[in-house]
C-alpha cells in the first residue's frame, strides 16, 4: 500500500464530484419539503441527528472493514464471520442510540409542546432510525467489498458514498414515518 497524493486525488475526485452533485440535489429536496418539516419543528431538529448517527455508524464500520480488508483479517465476502460480527455490533449500537434518543425526545415532550403525541414521535424516531441503520450497514459493507474487488482503496470510496446516501435515506425514512404515523 503506497500513498501518493495524485493517486488519492485520482481515486477520489470523480466520486466526490458525483457525491457533491447528489448533495446539491439533496439540498433542493430538503428545500422543497422544508415547509412540511416546519409544521413540526421537532422533525427539522431530527434531520441532522438521523443523518449524523447513520453516517457516523457507517463511517466507523467502513473504516474498520477497510482496515480489516487491507490487513487480511477478513475475506471479501458477506459470509465472513468476523465481518458479520462487525455488522451485528454496529446495528446493535445504532438501535440503542435511537432508543435513547426516542426516550430523550419523549421526556422533552413533557416539558415542551412538540405538537405531536409522545407515542407518535417515539414511533417516528425508532422507525426512521431502524430503516436508516439497517440500510446504511448493508450499503457500507456492499460498497467496501465492491471497491476491494475492483482493486480500489475502500478508504477512499466507502465513507463518501455511505454518508451521502445516508443523508438521502435519513430524510426519506423520516418523511415516510411522518406520513405513516402523523399524517
Amino acid at each position: 500500500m503506497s500513498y501518493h497524493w495524485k493517486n488519492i486525488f485520482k481515486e477520489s475526485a470523480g466520486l466526490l464530484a458525483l457525491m457533491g452533485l447528489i448533495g446539491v440535489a439533496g439540498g433542493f429536496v430538503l428545500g422543497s419539503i422544508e415547509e412540511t418539516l416546519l409544521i413540526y419543528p421537532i422533525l427539522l431538529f431530527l434531520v441532522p441527528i438521523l443523518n449524523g448517527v447513520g453516517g457516523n455508524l457507517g463511517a466507523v464500520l467502513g473504516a474498520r472493514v477497510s482496515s480489516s480488508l487491507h490487513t487480511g483479517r477478513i475475506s471479501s465476502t458477506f459470509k465472513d464471520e468476523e465481518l458479520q460480527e462487525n455488522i451485528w455490533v454496529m446495528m446493535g449500537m445504532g438501535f440503542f442510540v435511537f432508543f435513547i434518543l426516542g426516550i430523550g425526545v419523549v421526556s422533552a415532550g413533557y416539558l415542551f409542546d412538540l405538537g405531536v403525541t409522545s407515542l407518535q414521535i417515539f414511533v417516528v424516531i425508532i422507525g426512521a432510525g431502524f430503516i436508516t441503520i439497517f440500510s446504511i450497514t448493508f450499503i457500507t459493507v456492499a460498497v467496501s467489498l465492491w471497491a476491494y474487488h475492483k482493486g480500489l482503496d475502500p478508504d477512499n470510496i466507502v465513507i463518501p458514498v455511505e454518508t451521502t446516501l445516508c443523508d438521502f435515506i435519513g430524510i426519506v425514512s423520516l418523511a415516510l414515518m411522518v406520513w405513516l404515523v402523523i399524517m
Partner: protein
Amino acid sequence: MDRKRVVIETLPMLLLCVLGGALAGSVLAGMERVLEMIPGLIIIVPAIIDMRGNISTALSSRLGSAFHLGLLHQGLTSDVGKENVKGSLVLGLFTSSLFPVFLFFISFILPFEITYELLGVIFLVSIFTGVTSGLILIILSFLIVATSIKFGVDPDNISGPVLTTAGDVFTLIILFAYANLFGWLIL
C-alpha cells in the same frame, strides 16, 4: 474481533454526536437571516458540510489503515502523512469550486433563478469555507489519529464520528462568517 472494545470506544462517541448534531442544527437555525440575504446558498450548504466530512473521514480512514498496516511507525510527519495531506487539500479546493458550477447548471434545469452577482458571492463563500475548514479538519484528523494511537484506542473506532460532528459545527460557523463578510462586501 473484540466486541467490548468496539462498543466501549464507539458508543460514547455516537451519543456525543447526537449532541453535536443538535448544536449544528441550532447554528443552522441561527443562520436564517444570511441565508435569506444570499438565496441559493442554502442549497449548497448541506453539500459543503458533507464534502468536508467526506474528505476528512476518508483521510482518517486511510491513516487508520496505514496505522494497522504498520506504515505510520515513522510518525505522522512521514511521507505517508505528507502525501495524505496534499491529496486532501487538492480534493478540497477542487470540490469547493465545483458547487457554484453545479448550482449554475441546476438553475437551467429547475425552476430556480440566480444572478451572476449571487453566483460570485456563493463561489467565494464556497472556496474560502472549503479551504479554511478543510485545513482545520486536516489538522484535527491528524490530532485524533495521533491521540487515539497514543492512548491505545483503535483510530477506526472514533475518528469518523468525531470528525463529522466537529466538521459540521466548524464548517457551519466558518460558512456563516464568510457568508456575512462577502454578502456585506458585495451585495
